[in-house]
């Protein structure tokens, strides 16, 4: 059997479509140049010294106590944060799916799931310091403890857990909803107690999903830069060590080798999660719930669980509220009244607040539509079309998910500071706004692509085929059929990309040049210096922007959304 002719014809048909071919070529170039190449150059640079291939650089960094400690630190934090986030996420998901809640508690849950989306990365660290630090409102003024230290291991663990558990909560909620209630009803019917049903039916079904949630959080935790930076104190993780290696020790080769180590850890976790656990989760939870679940009304279960979750939710919300409120205190940690707007005045008059605002805003505003469009195009190609390099495009855009921002940042420094492969080619983009925009795009691409793919999979393939059959070419099909049908997803992708870009820090902080003032970099700088009031004021502005963007999006989808209307009828 020879499939040559069919493949050749498919290729010919593809070539007859210049828009498609150009798009594919451009995409491959973009992905190779800005995702694969920076990672490749890290490998090359850390193995290739003056005398050819060498392990010297690795020997050197593994002899640095700071580096080896950082590895253990990172793993210790990631492990505990992964477990805690998964457990708290499971509790929230279980209560939401299984227990009858009143509307107030339901509202709290919704807010908790929304918060990490709209908040900048430092917020929880700042409020942690504000509430529990040496001059913390709770520690000093309520409990009278004067020497409490939040900096270090526990600080990072608590802050990261609070940051990441909502992600686990959302993931596990989706899985729990997919468990067919009749499985559990059958167990109950045969005499199992509610606890027994959970341990013998629900939990085993959920186990791969829990593993999945754990690894996702683990990856997020070890890639996190902002929180360890602010609340880590002298407790350094890999991400911060790499940053310091570049900005403090000016050791770019060493940083590159460290970045390779960090990348290897996340890639390994990512591979396990993607190819082993995700498949397993799908295998155990294929069934769609055939009908509604009987919610738990039993007061002895309902009341303690609801109270526990509500308290936790309120605590998280309070943590987030702390920052905006804190930015109005006259002197942080000493004097709380009368509230004042002087910090906002200061950042705009003395600390270039307006420039920081416009720079962050404009760069993100340019990056967002590019990201959204790019991820929709990738999703369209991956879901709806078949061609040879499709696997490559999908794999590389997903790979970006496993690459910590710090690693990417180091890769860009090594890869573009002296041009591509140190030849001077494209050197011009280094230090410009363009490279920042590219980093924004690359950092948000995986999330956008993932949601685009799941949106497109909902759409019957034959709808696009029918347009194609009627005489439309690929561009026409994409513009008149695909895009209008996933308008909502496109819009939310646009806002997510914007929010992610404007709150980004890890890669950006390594690449930003003095001509650009970015809000997140400012927050980091002021928090480092201990000027928490200014940091809070900047963070508040950022929260207002991101929250405004999300609000705008919801309003827009409500009034102009297509998918919602269509879903109602089907």
């Amino acid at each position, binding site marked *: 059997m020879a499939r040559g002719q*069919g493949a050749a014809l498919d290729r010919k048909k593809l070539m007859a479509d210049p828009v498609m071919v150009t798009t594919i070529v451009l995409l491959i170039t973009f992905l190779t140049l800005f995702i694969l190449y920076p990672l490749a150059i890290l490998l090359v640079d850390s193995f290739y010294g003056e005398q050819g291939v060498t392990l010297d650089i690795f020997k050197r960094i593994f002899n640095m106590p700071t580096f080896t400690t950082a590895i253990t630190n990172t793993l210790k934090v990631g492990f505990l944060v992964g477990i805690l986030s998964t457990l708290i996420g499971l509790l929230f998901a279980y209560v939401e799916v299984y227990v009858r809640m009143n509307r107030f508690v339901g509202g709290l849950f919704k807010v908790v799931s929304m918060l990490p989306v709209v908040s900048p990365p430092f917020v929880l660290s700042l409020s942690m310091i504000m509430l529990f630090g040496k001059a913390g409102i709770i520690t000093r003024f309520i409990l009278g403890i004067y020497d409490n230290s939040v900096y270090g291991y526990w600080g990072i663990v608590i802050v990261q857990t609070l940051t990441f558990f909502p992600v686990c909560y959302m993931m596990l909620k989706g899985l729990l909803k997919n468990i067919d209630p009749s499985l559990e009803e059958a167990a109950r019917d045969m005499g199992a107690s509610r606890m027994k049903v959970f341990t013998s039916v629900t939990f085993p079904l959920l186990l791969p999903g829990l593993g999945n949630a754990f690894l996702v959080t683990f990856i997020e935790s070890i890639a996190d830069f902002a929180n360890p930076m602010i609340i880590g104190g002298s407790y350094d993780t890999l991400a911060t060590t790499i940053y310091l290696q570049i900005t403090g020790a000016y050791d770019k080769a060493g940083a590159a080798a460290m970045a390779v180590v960090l990348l290897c850890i996340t890639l390994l976790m990512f591979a396990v999660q993607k190819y082993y656990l995700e498949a397993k989760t799908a295998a155990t939870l294929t069934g769609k719930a055939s009908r509604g679940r009987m919610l738990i009304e039993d007061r002895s279960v309902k009341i303690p669980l609801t109270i526990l979750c509500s308290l936790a939710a309120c605590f998280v919300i309070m943590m987030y509220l702390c920052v905006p409120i804190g930015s109005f205190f006259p002197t942080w940690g000493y004097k709380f009244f009368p509230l004042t707007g002087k910090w906002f005045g200061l950042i705009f008059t003395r600390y270039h607040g307006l420039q920081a605002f416009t720079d962050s805003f404009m760069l993100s505003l340019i990056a967002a539509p590019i990201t959204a469009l790019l991820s929709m195009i990738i999703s369209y190609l991956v879901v709806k079309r078949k061609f040879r390099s499709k696997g490559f495009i999908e794999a590389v855009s997903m790979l970006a998910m496993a690459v910590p921002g710090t690693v990417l940042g180091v890769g860009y420094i090594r890869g573009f500071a002296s041009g591509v492969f140190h030849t001077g080619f494209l050197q011009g983009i280094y230090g410009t706004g363009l490279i920042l925009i590219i980093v924004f795009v690359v950092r948000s691409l995986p999330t956008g692509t993932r949601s685009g793919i799941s949106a497109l999979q909902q759409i019957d393939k034959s709808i696009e085929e029918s347009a194609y*059959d009627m005489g439309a070419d690929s561009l026409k099909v994409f513009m008149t059929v695909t895009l209008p049908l996933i308008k909502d997803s496109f819009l939310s992708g646009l806002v997510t990309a914007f929010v992610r870009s404007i709150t980004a820090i890890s890669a950006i902080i390594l690449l930003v040049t003095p001509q650009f003032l970015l809000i997140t970099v400012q927050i980091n700088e002021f928090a480092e210096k201990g000027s928490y009031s200014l940091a809070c004021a900047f963070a508040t502005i950022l929260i207002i922007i991101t929250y405004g963007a999300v609000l705008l999006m919801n309003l827009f989808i409500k009034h102009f959304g297509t998918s919602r209307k269509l879903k109602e*009828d089907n």
Partner: protein
Amino acid sequence: MEKTKKGVRLEHISKIYQDPKTGKDFYAVHDTSLTIEPGSFVTLLGPSGCGKTTTLRMIAGFESPDEGEIYLGDEPINELTPNKRDTAMVFQSYALLPHYNVFDNVAYGLKLRKVHKDEIKERVMKILDLVELSGMEGRMTNQLSGGQQQRVALARALVIEPSVLLFDEPLSNLDAKLRVSMRTEIRRIQQEVGITAIYVTHDQSEAMALSDNIIIMNKGVVAQMGTPQEIYYHPNSEFVADFIGEANFLKGTLTGQSGSMAAFSIEGNSLEVESQGKLEQGKEYTLVLRPESAHLAEEGGLPCKVTLSCFMGSYQNYQVMVGNTLVKLTESNPKNKHIYKVGESCTLKFEPDAVHIL
């Protein structure tokens, strides 16, 4: 439509797929050659997985054949993309564009062809009239019933005046009654327009009602091609006989042949039937007997025993054993006929020309 009608020709077409479980390649369609006359209505009929939809999608251009060449009229079209082929397809799921109303759905193909606005309006209205949807042009497609959506899909395909109309199981999402009325409708419209139509279905009654010619496919190859009558009365294999209508298979050994009559020994009984062509003495043949061409009697024919007798309204449903062979038969209009009960012994009778010898 003033356009010259075009036929479709497939020459030694094969399509190879990979089995997702075993990773082995197999022929979804194997060395298939077909000629579809201009203006005729042809059905590709077969069980699921027989390659009928793959064949249709290769004609539309969504799949590329691994061997062979497809012609539209006299033009080879292998290298043309679906949007460049002069074919239009009606999809199983209708595949209407959900963000457009009825008018815009039908007008879509014309807009792509840069037809003038006034002409678009005129042609869309005319075609909507043909499919009896006048007055519905402002509706969104999700406000339409399944049958109406089907008509929009048909109108959208017809309005661009393609050379060939392709149908991919278009009625399988409709309920039974609507299916019957829609197929009459499709046949009426095809006759009115005089277009070449290729229709994929697994429903044999649909194929019978619609087609000038039926192509029965099995395991990627054409099992038989012919008019509905040819296929029903002269199936060339047990598969075809069984797939089209109900069939009983009686094994018989030829004991003698004179003129157009042949004598068989079936389950130890001797029986004379009409035969075509030369048969081989002493060889075992399979005789195809349709359930409606036989009846039960007190004497004559093959002795049998009733194992099932069931009243179905317009007919009585029987199953009888002739020796070790199970035979199903239906006796229509049972009201004033003698009803045989389970366990009764009687005889199975049919006309000499009622069987087809394989």
